[in-house]
């Protein structure tokens, strides 16, 4: 084997040991939702933010709070409402009467993990303030700019049921989220376990497994994970298929796609695949990693036409068709 890749493999195996411990620790509190937990870890490792869509009561907040406890990260939950102001999010200047000076009062965004609940209920000004913080990793209050702590992860949620009186995120803003997860109900076995575990209202406690600096170190290792040219070609083919499906034998999708995925999708796909390989203790990416994260990376980046909406075709359906028709390397 290539010595560099060999070294990466060894390093990944070393650094990724905490993954199983984190998953096990979260498993004490959260029943199932393995997919969401892995995606949260991918977001942390790739410095990418996550948009979660799911009905209430699926342990979204509990999962994030538990993960933050395990990694000893500061967790902040914000309920977005229509009357929210940007200052409520990022902070504001407070006048101190004793010395007559204005002091910056940092807002709840200054945490490692932010849970922005029902982001689509807040007006566009608040959404932009949060998205700017996500993008820049810093916040300006008054004349001062404050960097956000590392690692910094935003999990925004959208309620797919109640859409009245909401401010849907524009596609350009949705594109900034690395992953979009669709959380579904647990199965009967999991529901039984939930009842057994949480029926008395007592939430089990978890232990701290790693520190935030371990996550930062793991991020450096993840960025070094090897991606072969064939995998890169596979990624580019997938993204290009969302823009020009006819070239890939998917002419039947041409009328359903208004806009395909941007180059940001290509980058996020590669990063997420690396993080997925890291979670599997591998120092190289294989096509399985691409297929595993591809749906979460691409489903919210395809803008469908009215014709697709009329036929009840979503971006997820289109992505699945593309994966079924692009030959894996």
């Amino acid at each position, binding site marked *: 084997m290539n010595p560099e890749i060999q070294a990466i493999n060894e390093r990944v195996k070393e650094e990724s040991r905490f993954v199983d411990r984190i998953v096990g620790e979260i498993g004490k509190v959260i029943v199932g939702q393995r997919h969401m937990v892995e995606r949260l870890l991918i977001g942390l490792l790739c410095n990418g933010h996550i948009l979660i869509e799911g009905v209430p009561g699926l342990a979204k907040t509990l999962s994030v709070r538990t993960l933050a406890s395990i990694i000893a990260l500061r967790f902040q939950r914000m309920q977005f409402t229509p009357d929210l102001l940007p200052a409520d999010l990022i902070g504001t200047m407070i006048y101190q009467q004793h010395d007559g000076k204005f002091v910056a009062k940092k807002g709840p965004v200054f945490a490692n993990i932010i849970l922005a609940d029902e982001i689509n209920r807040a007006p566009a000004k608040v959404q932009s303030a949060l998205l700017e913080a996500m993008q820049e990793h810093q916040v300006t209050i008054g004349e001062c700019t404050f960097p956000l702590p590392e690692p910094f992860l935003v999990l925004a949620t959208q309620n797919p049921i109640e859409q009245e009186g909401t401010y849907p995120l524009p596609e350009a803003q949705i594109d900034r989220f690395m992953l979009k997860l669709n959380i579904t109900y647990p199965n009967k076995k999991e529901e039984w376990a939930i009842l057994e575990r949480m029926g008395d209202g007592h939430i089990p406690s978890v232990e701290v497994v790693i520190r935030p600096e371990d996550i930062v170190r793991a991020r450096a290792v993840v960025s070094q994970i090897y991606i072969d040219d064939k995998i890169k070609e596979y990624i580019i083919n997938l993204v290009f298929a969302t823009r020009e499906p006819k070239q890939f034998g998917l002419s039947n999708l041409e009328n359903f796609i208004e806009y395909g995925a941007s180059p940001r999708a290509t980058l996020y796909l590669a990063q997420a695949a690396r993080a997925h390989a890291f979670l599997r203790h591998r120092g190289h990416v294989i096509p399985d990693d691409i297929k595993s994260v591809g749906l979460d990376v691409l489903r919210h980046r395809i803008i469908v036409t009215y014709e697709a909406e009329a036929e009840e075709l979503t971006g997820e359906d289109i992505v699945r068709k593309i994966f*079924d028709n692009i030959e894996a390397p």
Partner: protein
Amino acid sequence: MGRAGRRGWSKVPSLLRARHWLIAVVLLAGWTATPPAAYVGASSDDRPITKWLPGERKPEPTSSALPSLGLTLTTPSVSILPSLATTGPAIVPPAPSVAPTVSVRSRLEPDQRRFHLGGEIALFVELSWVGDAGDVAPEAPEEPTLMNLTKKGMVQSSRILPQGSPQTVVVTYHYILEPTAEGAASIEPIQIPYRLRGGSDLLRFTSDRFALTILPRRWPWGKILFGAFATVVVLGIATAAAMATAARIRRAREAAKVPPPPSPLEQMKAELGGIRRLFTEGAAKDAYDSVERFIRKALGLRLGGDLRYATISELGERLANETLDSAVRDRAASILDRCAQVKFAGYVPTVADQDQTIADCRLLLDDLEKKDEGKGLKDEL
């Protein structure tokens, strides 16, 4: 018509017109109402019967039965004018007292006097008379006296020409004769007895005498030629069918000798040569890429479906779910893992690795082929 026409018509005496019409109606009614009668006798069971003298005619519907053909011709009489007959003696037309004239005619068919041995001769003896069919009652004719001829059969028929009056009754005796020897032959006159209606005397008709000459047998060359032609045609068709069948059997035997085309798995073994060449040329990555496509194709033939779009992990899951021998499953998974290592993990295979990969591929094909044969045998059982 106009006033002038009506005035002209009114000049004819109305009484005169009415009297003429009355006379005409009376005459017509008398003619149609009363049937002429001969005499009414009595039968042995005292039922009144009506017997008719020759020449008399019944006004009631006639029915003439032709004995040989069994046909019944009915000519109903229709009274156009209503009967105005009153009670009183009926008006009887005078009955004719002359017996019908019966004529006899004999003829041969064909109408010739020279016949060949082996042929048939038709003799027609016809009795005809004008009147009713019941006026003359012919009886069975005597057997004909023949020389150098034999009677094969005789058919008697009757017909009435035309329907209505006067009518002619024709009774025909059709003899079918066959020559028996060459030379002179003859048909002596045939006696046909008959009685007239109401008469007791047995009268006789006599047909003509025929002198014939019987010639030697004439071969039916037309029939012989036609038969020969038909035989040739039938034999020809049968021969052609037999030859086609023989050719088909011969072709089947030759086809059986030709070895069947190689199975897809056997054809794939030949592809391994191309992969080995890639190894020899140093294109290890391309070679392992070809190996992976090769394995996907082989597994696709065995498991069914197109496996190009499945990842290695998905292939592994598919293999785990199929009822395959564990050795086959492990060997396929091992080859695929080796391909993944070379293609995606930067693994540089040694020559030993390459040889081992080719050998494993060949063994995998053998295993898959054996499973195909076993599967076929299980189906037969």
